[in-house]
């Protein structure tokens, strides 16, 4: 049996905001087909970690490798790092489909225009091809009828599903979900989780920062518990939720039930 290819490798990542060290050396490897859920209390650095993977947040030290290609970094002169090749970062970002907590759909475009924007203007696809793919993706997340509507007229759940379609449209190697249901009304969470769960079942590689523990347990094959900027414990869902070892994890799990 061949080992699956490595999709993302993060090595010894540190991130400092002024005097506050949010990440204190986090390493994580995601192979193709992995569904990794990152859990932890607020302020544990999980969103920051995710945002460091596509360099929306620049790490203070450490390295990120996407599909075997390490992002070249140089010193920024303020004790941190910055990408030494902006083109490389832009190219690698098209491998990473990010879904944000607050959707961040482009409000001046219709749903379909949102979905075809990057394929046309970044990936250089033809308009017909992008529309065909985009409409298929919208049908898949159940928003085909809303393709000509503007984001402001959609519910939060519909907007987040559209945002997932937009991320899928770039045909990313890895999907990054940054608390995708945290900004939603409780009754809208389900429709978004259903879409993400379907993606997980078809073995799409994804890293998911979430507060939905039950969901994480169901869809992820690996759970990472971040606390105070370090990986406190990681393992299979059954190990983490069924047999937590560290005190902090025990406390965290009992606090959410």
């Amino acid at each position, binding site marked *: 049996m061949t080992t699956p290819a490595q999709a993302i490798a993060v090595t010894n990542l540190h991130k400092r905001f002024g005097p506050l060290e949010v990440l204190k050396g986090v390493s994580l490897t995601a192979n193709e087909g992995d569904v990794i859920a990152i859990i932890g209390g607020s302020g544990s650095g999980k969103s920051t970690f995710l945002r460091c993977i*596509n360099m*929306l947040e620049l790490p203070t030290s450490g390295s990120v490798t996407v599909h075997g290609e390490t992002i070249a970094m140089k010193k920024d002169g303020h004790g941190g790092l910055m990408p030494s090749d*902006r*083109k490389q970062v*832009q*190219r*690698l*970002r*098209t491998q*990473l*489909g*990010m879904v*944000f907590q*607050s*959707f*961040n*759909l*482009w*409000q*001046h475009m219709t749903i379909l225009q949102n979905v075809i*924007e*990057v394929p046309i*203007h*970044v990936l250089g696809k033809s308009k017909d091809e992008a529309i065909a793919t985009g409409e298929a993706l919208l049908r898949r997340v159940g928003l085909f009828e*809303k393709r*000509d*509507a*503007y984001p*402001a*007229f*959609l519910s939060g759940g519909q907007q987040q599903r559209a945002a997932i379609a*937009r*991320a899928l449209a*770039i045909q990313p190697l890895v999907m990054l979900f940054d608390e995708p249901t945290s900004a939603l009304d409780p009754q809208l969470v389900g429709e978004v989780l259903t879409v993400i769960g379907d993606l997980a079942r078809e073995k799409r590689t994804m890293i998911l920062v979430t507060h939905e523990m039950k969901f994480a347990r169901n869809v992820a094959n690996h759970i990472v518990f971040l606390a105070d900027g370090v990986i406190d414990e990681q393992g299979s869902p059954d190990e983490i939720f069924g047999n937590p070892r560290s005190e902090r994890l025990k406390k965290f799990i009992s606090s959410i039930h």
Partner: protein
Amino acid sequence: MTDTTPPDVTTHAMAFTPEDLPTAGSFFKPHRIVLLLIAAALVFCIVWFMRWDWVPQYLPRLGYGILVTLAMLFSTAILGFILAVPLGLVQVTGPWPLKTLAKIFCTVIRGTPLLLQLWLLYYGLGSIFPQTGIKQTFLWPYLRESWPYGVAALTISFAAYEGEVMRGAFAGVPAGEIEAARAYGMNRWTVFRRIWLPRAIHRALPTLNGETVLQLKATPLVATITVIDVYSVISKVRQDTYITYEPLLLLALIYMCLTGILVIAFRYLENRIPTRGA
């Protein structure tokens, strides 16, 4: 089965819905009949008791004047807006020397009367140019005229006001939308061209509408430096005929019509992208 589903609000949002407009029947309510009669009487009085016999004679010149006014408005609004985009952008994201320069420009221009700027350009630069080498260049035939100074002054003024408007519009685009664009691998120029700028313009449109109307009503100032716009044609009428009020009434009507057209055009642009709760 009858189809009774209402039109999809997500794709048919408009500022004016048919319910807002008066129907034919609603004109026959008593108070409206009275108002209509008063208006009709007013129009009748204006037409019957005032002097309009001068109009046919001046009609060609009035048409020319309106064209000059419109040319002044559109050229300076477009040029001014093109300048306003970088002026607003550097104030939001530029390096500090550019930011400071843009701030000083906007503050100085907005802090002085347009009439003063116009005269400084026309009487100041206009009297310096003949003593310089410009007299030998291809520009001289234009710089000898008065309209380039009018265009310059109105453009600079519009740029300064709209620079501030665009500064606010750029700053007001949600950071998350810019971030999403970057997260999918857009380079800076694409982010600006596809997301930031169109989003900012969309936000600024209602303000730009008002500012363009103000710009229209700033154009008569060019009459003070001998540009023949519609205002100066009307002044000429008054000088020639000694008729006081009628030309002014007509002038008011002309500016009102032009304003109406501008407002409707901008409303059409705004409605192309519906906003919620507008």
